[in-house]
């Protein structure tokens, strides 16, 4: 069953459908939330909040706007960012992140789920010029303000948006539409 079909059933209060979505995304969503929060409790709390929102129908997924996965992860990211700023107002996302600069080590062997997606995005990222990789990480994982991105990259404030735009464009060109764009027919 596609994500969208499951989502539609969740809207009709089908518990089984929610559980299936949970199983489908537990590992990757949890990993993403851990990456953002660097805190197991916060990551689980964020997980909790995401699925409560999904069940309650907070926020509406519109199939024409993109992939369900992107919508779900965006919701998780927003929840995580808000939790961090509420619980640890002194901690910047970037500080949490700095402690665990992502290694380029290969994923552990048991991590076979989503391997194709992982490989694809890792390869695409690796092909970007360093400054574009940097801006992608500053944007998505550290969630920096525009001013801080400017400071971190040593560029004027007014050019941040352009650099982000360029990086996204380069990244999109290297990713198959199936990874980020609208659901494909199956």
């Amino acid at each position: 069953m596609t994500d969208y079909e499951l989502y539609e059933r969740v809207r009709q209060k089908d518990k089984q459908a929610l559980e299936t979505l949970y199983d489908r995304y537990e590992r990757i969503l949890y990993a993403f939330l851990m990456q953002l929060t660097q805190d197991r409790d916060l990551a689980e709390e964020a997980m909790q909040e995401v699925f409560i929102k999904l069940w309650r129908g907070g926020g509406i997924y519109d199939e024409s706007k993109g992939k369900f996965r992107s919508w779900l992860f965006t919701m998780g990211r927003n929840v995580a960012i808000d939790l961090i700023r509420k619980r640890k107002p002194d901690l910047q996302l970037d500080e949490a992140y700095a402690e665990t600069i992502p290694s380029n080590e290969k994923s552990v062997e048991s991590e076979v789920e989503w391997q194709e997606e992982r490989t694809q995005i890792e390869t695409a990222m690796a092909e970007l010029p360093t400054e574009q990789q940097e801006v992608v990480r500053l944007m998505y994982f550290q969630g920096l303000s525009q001013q801080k991105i400017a400071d971190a990259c040593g560029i004027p404030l007014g050019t941040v948006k352009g650099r982000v735009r360029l990086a996204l464009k380069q990244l999109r060109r290297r990713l198959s539409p199936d990874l980020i764009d609208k659901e494909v027919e199956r």
Partner: protein
Amino acid sequence: MNACDQLIDYFNRHLTEDERVQFEAHLATCETCQQELEQLEALVGGVAFLSEPAEPPSGMKARVLDRVFAEDEAPKAVEPNAIKPPPPTPFSAPKERRKTSWGAFALAAALVLSLIGNGYLLLNQTEPSGISLTETVPLDGEADGVAYLAEQDGTRQLIVQTNGLTPLEANEVYQVWLLKDGSPIPTGAFVTDDKGNGTVIYTLDATEADMDWDTVAVTKEPKRGNTMPEGDIVLSASL
């Protein structure tokens, strides 16, 4: 700095609540920002896979799903499905407001002007860019205000803008309501800046969009999240 330049800070949730509301007002009318936001969000579905693998804690699934489904068994407060809670306000307001940056108020004012500009353009353009204003209603009461009904991709939005409302106390909010035969539903809350400027955008769900609302009103509520008005009406108009 124009409104479009706030997109990144909006996406990364650095805007204060006031700024966020203002930006969302801009977003509703700016196709470029809508597209760029869509692209930013689409890529979340890709970059998330760059995360270091992490083993989910044991028992997390049971804890999460139990809590989710427990919601259903808990006695419901008031809300039948037709009534939507006001949009979530993730930031604790007082704390965030202290963080309001130097130009925020001026910026907010500028954004309101820019939105009014956009509204004007929308009203005057023959080829609507996905969004079209269906009704513009001046509000009567103790300050200036306008309600717009807009339509975008088949969904209806209620946009309310104010100017010159009296300042709010600590937890108070201005709450917008749509009424039919005297019974209200909450359609978004907002706080004002030092000039009494405020904006709120509310997307009506399918049921709400079909209703023949007769009145729009703004009340001053002692707290956020009221499903029935407690405070007095400060602005209102017939639709």
